[in-house]
């Protein structure tokens, strides 16, 4: 498992000791990745930037509790997801996340229409959307997703199966095979 490149581990170790320079180097290395993951959640430039900014601050505050340096990227992703969800919630303060249909509501899509995954994930409940983003956009393994979401690997697989079931209506055949 290579959630964090080996050549970055020394920097992670320094960052865990509170070295802000090392932490800054790591963040710079991952900033595009962080932005893209955040954008997948909030689909808005300013909100994605807010999520990245908040993630950077929160992660440094908590970095001494990171127990395994090799999990840095996954751990950072986990914090980013939380930040993105919090910010997304602020834009939709009433509906619980699990029931939110983030962008286009499903009835607006006929079975004939074929979305790509980028659009399709918006119709998923939060937990399914998260596993899809981490698996297919962040390229995480099942084990890494398990760590990022703090759920058992079996649950990750179950969510993936269910998410794929939800997506079946709106994805092209090619994508289904790819999944």
């Amino acid at each position, binding site marked *: 498992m290579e959630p964090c490149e080996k*050549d*970055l581990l*020394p*920097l992670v*170790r*320094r960052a*865990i*000791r*509170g*070295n*802000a*320079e*090392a*932490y*800054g180097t790591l*963040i*710079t290395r991952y*900033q*595009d990745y962080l*932005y*893209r993951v955040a*954008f*997948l959640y909030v689909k808005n*430039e300013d909100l*994605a*930037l807010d999520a*990245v*900014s908040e993630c*950077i*601050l*929160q992660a*440094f*505050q*908590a970095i*001494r*509790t990171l*127990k*395994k*340096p090799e999990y840095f990227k996954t751990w950072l992703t986990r*914090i980013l997801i*939380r930040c993105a*969800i919090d910010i997304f919630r602020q834009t939709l303060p009433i509906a619980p*996340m*699990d029931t939110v249909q983030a962008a286009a509501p499903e009835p607006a899509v006929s079975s004939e229409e074929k979305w*790509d*995954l*980028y659009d399709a994930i918006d119709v998923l409940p*939060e*937990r399914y959307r*998260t596993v899809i983003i981490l698996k*297919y*956009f*962040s*390229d995480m393994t099942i084990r890494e997703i398990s760590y990022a*979401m*703090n*759920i058992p690997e079996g649950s990750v697989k179950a969510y993936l199966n269910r998410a794929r079931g939800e997506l079946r209506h709106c994805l092209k055949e*090619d*994508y289904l095979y*790819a999944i």
Partner: protein
Amino acid sequence: MPFKFDEIPVSTKLDETVKAALDQIKKEKRRKSGRKFLVGCTSVAAAFAAAVIFCVSNPALAAKLPLVGSLFAGLEDDFPYAGDYSDRAQILTPPETPAALETPGEGQAGGEAPAGEEGSAPEDTVAPAEGPYSATDSGLTFTASEIYSDGLSVFLSLQIHSEEAFGFNYDWTEDGDGGKPARDETGNLIPLPASLYPVGRAYIDSEEVVFDSTRLFVEQLDEHNFNGMIKTDLPASMRGMGGSHTMQVSLQHLLADFCDETGAPVSNEENIMDTSLQIDGAWELELPFTADIGSTQVFNNLSSSKDPGQITDVYVSPYQAVVNFVPCSDEWGNPEGGAVCFDENGTLLEKGNQSTDFGSDVFSLDFGPDKKQPAELRLYVIEDWIASCKIRDEETARKQAVSSLTLPLSR
């Protein structure tokens, strides 16, 4: 993969946003560093720092300092693991090596003349005596000095001796001003705890435990010698129980970060991102210890409720408090939550560096010999772990808590 994650356009404002966040972190860190330094100047820590400066500039004399058998007492002030375990620790390697014949006072204050030329001398540096709790390979010797267990964790002090000279461990980023090294009033570089990372595995009675090298804290005595201590948590099955045990430590690498005398970090020629140095080898240590639970208080079954946040067990030793609670749930119904702890005066107890999984938190205490222990612990469980890390005052904890408990301690 048909999904073009990398083609999601990145905001042109991202660089600016990231820089602003990192600047905020550095600014905050500078502020804390400055405060820490001012406090340190009037404290024992400053005296210790002066001693280390002395050692760095006088490696031969540094080698005369006691190296084994009494490391805890010298290390405790500079490390986040509270407490001086000296009075309770089992001495694994008695201080009988030539390097340790003098007392700390004699070695530091007496100013005994070095055996060789000042600043030269690897040959002046006294290698540790081999013993049953030493392991040597690749020119590197690990010597276990003292070991102590409070029934919750194992605290181990180590001496590390290298035949080859290392650089010095100045933190060139601490003052945060353009990467210049931090210097004291006389212009000398301020040495900070060394960055050594032994990589390997540890077992207690054959049960593997997390041996986290980032939690090893090391002081550099000279170019060849380092003293350090590490805390390793006991497996849950042994927590709060006494008895004799054996800790096996099996190391495969030693990584090190250091700087040259100008304060510039020493780069690895093959990979600039890598540590300054990596030494491969095989070092095996087998260390007997007895869990001392005489001063450890165990509070089991505090709540029979399975409601989220209910505090179930608390373990209090003179050096730490471990709080177990029923995990809360996050958005996905998964374990979450963190505990916050105050004493009877409303003083926040810092979370330890080795908080375990969700549903358990560790707090630093220090009421060893001659120190007054808290009369009670006030515990709060917060639904969100990150929020629990942010809390600094009891009122906020009270407002955010999903459960709380005041625990009187016996004296």
